[in-house]
Every structure is written in structure tokens, then in C-alpha cells.
């Protein structure tokens, strides 16, 4: 009787030990799985911010408010300086409307050549604290139609997208 009791006690102890090890293994597995999930989520977030930066840069470079046109035919990679002056005021006045398009970003146009260089601020919504910033430089022609002969300057559209 005593022997039988001891044997069952040992078996109970074994079962408890097995359960304990099983739960430890389960916790290890869960922690490991969560780490994997975190890693892949980080990669996806990084890819998404890159795609978002490209999207915003594309939207900025094809903004109808800025594009040059000749008899209603759009010219590629060209910004009309008269429109640029008007649009920079318009965008600042309608900041909420343009937030849907450009979100947290800073968009400006720089005249590179001929000197002197000049900068036009188009949109600026820089968050107070951000973790990353992706800059895209798009070379673009700047058309000046105020002279007798229209002139094209060498400029750059700079789009900085912020990740909070």
C-alpha cells in the first residue's frame, strides 16, 4: 500500500514537471514568435514609408497647379514660375485641403542654374518630433514667361516626407 502510494506520488511529480517544462517551452515559443512578428512589421513599416514618400513626390511633381502648358498641352517635368508663386500662397491658405495630399512633408522648389539660386516654399508640415525623414530630389525645368523669350531654368523639386 505504501509502495503504491509512493509510485503514484512520483508519477504526479513527473506530470507536474512535464507540465512546467511544457509551459516554459510555450512561453519561449510565444516570445520568439512575437519577436519575429515585430521584425516583419518593422520591415513592412519601412517599405510603406518608402512607398508613401514616392507617392507624395509623384503627386508633387504632377501637381496641376504648377505644371507648364502650351495651348492646354501639358509639358512634362516643368513648373511655371508664375503658377508657382500663385500656388505657394494658395497651398498655404488651404493647408487642410493639401494635408490630405501631402500629409507630414516639406515641399520646396529650388532654382539651381542660372545663378543666383532661389527657393520657393510650397508646403510645410513638419511634425515637432519625427523618427525618420526621406528626401526625394526631382530635377525639373522652371519656365519663366515674363521675358520676351520664354526661358527655362534648371531647378529641383525637393520633397521631404516625415515618419513620426
Amino acid at each position, binding site marked *: 500500500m505504501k509502495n503504491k502510494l509512493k509510485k503514484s506520488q512520483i508519477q504526479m511529480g513527473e506530470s507536474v514537471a512535464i507540465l512546467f517544462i511544457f509551459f516554459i517551452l510555450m512561453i519561449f515559443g510565444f516570445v520568439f514568435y512575437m*519577436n*519575429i512578428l515585430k*521584425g*516583419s512589421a518593422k*520591415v*513592412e513599416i*519601412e*517599405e510603406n514609408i*518608402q*512607398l508613401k*514618400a*514616392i507617392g507624395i513626390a509623384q503627386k508633387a511633381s504632377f501637381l496641376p497647379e504648377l505644371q507648364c502648358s502650351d495651348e492646354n498641352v501639358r509639358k*512634362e*517635368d*516643368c513648373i511655371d514660375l508664375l503658377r508657382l508663386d500663385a500656388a505657394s500662397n494658395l497651398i498655404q491658405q488651404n493647408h487642410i485641403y493639401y494635408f490630405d495630399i501631402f500629409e507630414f512633408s516639406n515641399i520646396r522648389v529650388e532654382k*539651381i*542654374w*542660372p545663378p543666383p539660386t532661389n527657393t520657393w516654399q510650397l508646403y510645410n508640415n513638419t511634425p515637432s518630433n519625427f523618427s525618420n525623414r*526621406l528626401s*526625394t*530630389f*526631382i*530635377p*525639373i*525645368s522652371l519656365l519663366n514667361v515674363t521675358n520676351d*523669350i*520664354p*526661358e*527655362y*531654368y*534648371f*531647378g*529641383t523639386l525637393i520633397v521631404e516626407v516625415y515618419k513620426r
Partner: protein
Amino acid sequence: MKITKRSQMEMMGLAIIVILVSITMLFAISFVVLRKPAEYKQEYTQTELASNILSTLLRTTASECNELSFTEIYQDCAKHYPFPSSELCEVGGSPQSTCHFLNQTTKEILNQTLGNWHIKYEFNAKIKSDPNPIVSTGSCPGVKKHKIYPIPVDPSGQKTVSITLDICS
């Protein structure tokens, strides 16, 4: 005796299965954990940059050269090359040849853009029949994104100046 051998074989089979499953799991985990984010932006920037810079550069007008575009200035330079080209440009009150003007301004523009953005590049403007380039700056020995713009110099199209810009990867 026979039974022991059979059980040993079964054990071996089980061990092999366990090893195979472990290796597969390790591969799967390493693919998920060590996966680097795809460089969408770099790819997009490199593809677009060379094309945009060349199209913008060739469209730019130079007030120093009677409001001619860079395409026309390259055509004029290539027409006379390697002999001194016509002095259509005027910089700082003194006349300057189109080739000399191109050499200076092209390098200046590329330096102010790609140079300032820390992007390595190689620019070449050369006539097909002539081994010496009209303008050459930078070097790109490795992998690169290549963009070429041919500009016809004469109406027959036999003489062509090729403008190439390589963005190093």
C-alpha cells in the same frame, strides 16, 4: 535480434525527419527575420534621376548664349568639334566658345545637384565618330543606371552627339 534492428531503423527514420523539419523551420525563420526592407525609393530615384536630369538640362536656356537651349548649344559645339567652335556665348563681357561654355556649366550644374546630394555619377557627351568626349565628368566603374540622349547634329543624321549620364548604384 531482428526486432532491435527494426526499431533502430525506425529511430533513424524519425531522427532524419526531425532534422529535415528543423532545417526547413530554420530556413523559414531566417527568411522572415532577416528579410531586409525592399529599396523601393532608391530604385525609383535612380531610375528617374538620370532621365530627369538629362531632359531638364537639355531644355535649359542660356541667356549668355543668345537664349539658346543646351540642346542647340551641344549641336553647335558638335558641328565644329574638334576644331574651335563658334563664339556664340558671352560670359562676363568676353566672348566664349560654345564647347567651353558647355564644359563649365554642365559640370557646375551636375556638381550643384548630384554632387551636393552625394550621388556618384558619370557624364559623357561625345560624337560617335570621335573618341574624345566634348564634356566628361565623374566616373562610375561598377553597377549603374544608364540614360542616353542622342542629339542629331546635321540634317542627314550621320553626325550625332550622344549625351549619357550614369548614376552609380
